C-alpha cells in the first residue's frame, strides 16, 4: 500500500530523514519506536505531505500512485488518514464540524451512526459542540482524533503517539477502537486496512496487535523485526541497545 525507498527529507533546510526505506502492505500494521528528535513525526508528516517537509530524494508511492508532489488533501482522497499528536485549536470550529468535514458531509447535522460511535468513545453531544481541541485534555485529544478518523474511514492510518498523556482506561478504549479501524479483529486474509503507529512508551502495544516493528535513529530505520522482540528490547534496554542487538543478530546470520 505504502512504498518508501531511499527517502530524504529536509525541514527548514535541515536534513531530518536520510535514505529511509519502508514498505507497508495492505492488511499490515507497523509500529515505529525511536527517541525524541529521531524523525518519527517528520516521517508521518512527510507521508501526509505537509508543506514544511521537503522531499529532496527518494521515492514514495501510495496505492501505486507517486504522491511526492500531491497536496495533503489529494493524499487524503486516496485514502490516507492521520491522528495528530498535538492538533491545533481552531476557534469556532466544533468537533462536530470536524467530524462532518472528515466524513465529507456538507450538512451541519451529525450522522446518527457517528453519534453512536462517539458514545463508545465517551464523547457526548455536548463535547461535539465544543471548539475542536480547545481545552481538551490529553485523552480527549486522542479520542477526538480517533472519532474524526472513524468518520473519515481511511485505508491507511498513521497514529502519532496515540498513547501519550492518556490514562490506562482510555488507552484500552483507544487501542480497542484502533484495532477496529485497522481491521485487526478480522482474519488476516480479510484485512484491508493498513497502519503506522508511533509510540514512545509502547503502552498502546498491549491493546493492539501489530505485524512489524521498527526502531528509528537519527533519521533512518536502524532496525526492524517482530514486534514482541523489538518492544521487549526497547523497553528493557533502550533504543540504542536494541539496535545493537539487532545488528548482532544480523552479524550472526
Amino acid at each position, binding site marked *: 500500500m505504502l512504498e518508501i525507498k531511499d527517502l530524504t527529507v529536509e525541514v527548514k533546510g535541515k536534513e531530518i530523514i536520510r535514505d529511509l526505506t519502508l514498505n507497508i502492505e495492505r492488511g499490515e500494521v507497523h509500529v515505529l519506536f525511536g527517541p525524541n528528535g529521531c524523525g518519527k513525526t517528520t516521517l508521518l508528516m512527510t507521508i*501526509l505531505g*505537509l*508543506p514544511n517537509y521537503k522531499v529532496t530524494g527518494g521515492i514514495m508511492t501510495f496505492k501505486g500512485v507517486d504522491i511526492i508532489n500531491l*497536496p*495533503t*488533501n489529494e493524499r*487524503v*482522497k486516496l485514502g490516507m*488518514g*492521520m491522528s*495528530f499528536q498535538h*492538533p*491545533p485549536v*481552531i*476557534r*469556532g*470550529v466544533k468537533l462536530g*464540524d*470536524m467530524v462532518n*468535514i*472528515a466524513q*465529507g458531509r456538507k450538512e451541519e447535522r451529525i450522522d446518527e451512526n457517528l453519534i453512536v460511535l462517539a458514545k463508545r468513545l465517551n464523547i457526548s453531544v455536548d463535547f461535539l459542540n465544543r*471548539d475542536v481541541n480547545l481545552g481538551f485534555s490529553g485523552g480527549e485529544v486522542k479520542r477526538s482524533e480517533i472519532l*474524526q478518523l472513524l468518520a*473519515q474511514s481511511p485505508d491507511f492510518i498513521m497514529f502519532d503517539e496515540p498513547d501519550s498523556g492518556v490514562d490506562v482506561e482510555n488507552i484500552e478504549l483507544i487501542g480497542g477502537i484502533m484495532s477496529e479501524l485497522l481491521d485487526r479483529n478480522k482474519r488476516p486474509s480479510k484485512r484491508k486496512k493498513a497502519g503506522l503507529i508511533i509510540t514512545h512508551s509502547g503502552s498502546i502495544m498491549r491493546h493492539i496487535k501489530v505485524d512489524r516493528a521498527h526502531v528509528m535513529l537519527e533519521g533512518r530505520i536502524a532496525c526492524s523485526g517482530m514486534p514482541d522482540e523489538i518492544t521487549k528490547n526497547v523497553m528493557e534496554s533502550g533504543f540504542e541497545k536494541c539496535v545493537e542487538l539487532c545488528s548482532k543478530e544480523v552479524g550472526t546470520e
Partner: protein
Amino acid sequence: MTKKELIERAGRAKTKKAALGEDIAIENFVTGREHDALNSLDEFPEEYQQDLLDAGIEPSEKDRSGSFLQRDCSVVFSTVKYPGLELMSTTDALKEHDWLKGYLWKAVPVDMDKYTAEVELEQTHGYFIRSEAGKKVTMPVQSCLFITTDKIGQKVHNIIIAEEDSELHIITGCSVSHAVNSALHLGVSEFYVKKGAKITFTMIHNWSRGMEVRPRSAVVIEDDGAFISNYILMTPVKSLQMYPTAYCVGRNARATFQTIIYAHGDTKIDSGSRAVLRGEGSRSEIISRVIAADNATVIARSDVIGEGANAKGHIECRGLMLSDTAEVDSIPELKATRKDLDLSHEAAVGKVAEEEIQYLMARGLSEEEATSVIIRGFLNVDITGLPDALARETKKMFDMSLEKVM
C-alpha cells in the same frame, strides 16, 4: 431640559467635531423628497427587496411582532401585530405621549458632537419601540432604515423602552440601494431597560462603499435588567465611527456587546463598545471579532469602567488579518475605581494559522476550503440570550452575509 434648552445646546454644538473618526461635512447632504407610504412591505420596490433581506428584514412579516421601514427621510411603513407592543415613528410617538420628551437626550448628550446636534436640529424621524410592563414580546420587532437616494442625509432619533419586567427582541437593518454613490446616516439610539426587563438588539449594517455612518447609541439599564447587542457588518463602508455605551446603573444590571466585522475594500471603521458598571453587582461582556482584508482599516475599541461594588466585566477581542495592506488597531481599556471589582480583557490579532489549514487539509479539504472554514469559525460567536428561533435566524442571516463576501 425644555425643548428650547435642547435647541440652544444643540446650536452651540453645531460645529463641535466628534472625539473620534474623520470629520464629515454634513452640509453636503440633503433631506430629499417625501416618499409615499406603503400598505405592506411587499409593496417596497422589487429592486430593494433583496437589500431588505440582506439587512435581516422579512418582507412577509412572518414571525414578526411588528415592522417599521423608513425610506430616506420618510417613514413609509409601520405596523404592530402584538398587544403590549408599541412601534411608530419617534415624531408620532412624541405627539402621542407627552411623557416621552423626558426620555429624549437622557442617555446620549445632545451636545456630544455636531452629529447629535444635527439630529436634534434637523431630525428626520427614527423609530419608537416600547414594550409594556410585564409583556414578553418574544417574537422580534423588525425595523429598517433604508437609503435609496443619492446625497441623502438620514438623521434619525430612535427611542427604545422596555418597561419593568418586559422583554423586547429587535432586529434592525440599515441598508442602502446600489444606486447610491454617497450618503450620510446619523442615528441616535437611546435604550431604556427598566427593572427586570430585557432587550436584545440584533443589528445588521448592510452599507455600501459611499456611505458615511455615525451612530450615537447609549443604553440605561436598571436593576436586574439585561441588554444584549449583536452587531454584524459584512459589507464595505466609506467610513463608520461609533462607540455605543451601556450604563449599568441598577443592581445586577447586565450588558453584552457582540460585534462581528468583516472589513474589506477601502473600508474605514472605528468601532467600539463601552460599559459603565455603576450598579452593585452589575456585569458586562464585550466580545468582538474583526477580519480585515484588502485595504481596510479597523480600530476596534472596548472599554469597561467599574464603579459599583462587585461589578464584573470582561473584554474579548480578536482580529484576523487577511492582507498586508489592511490594518487593525485593537484597543481594550479597563478602568477600576474601587477594590472589589473583577475586570479583565484578552486581545489577539493574528493571521490564518498554517497548522490549522494543514489540519483541515488532513481531513480532506483543499487549502481554499480550509481557509474558508477557519474564517467562518473565527467569526462564529455563540449568540447568547436570544430566543431559540431568533438565535437560529440570526445565525442564518450571519451565514448569508458571510456567503456574500467569501
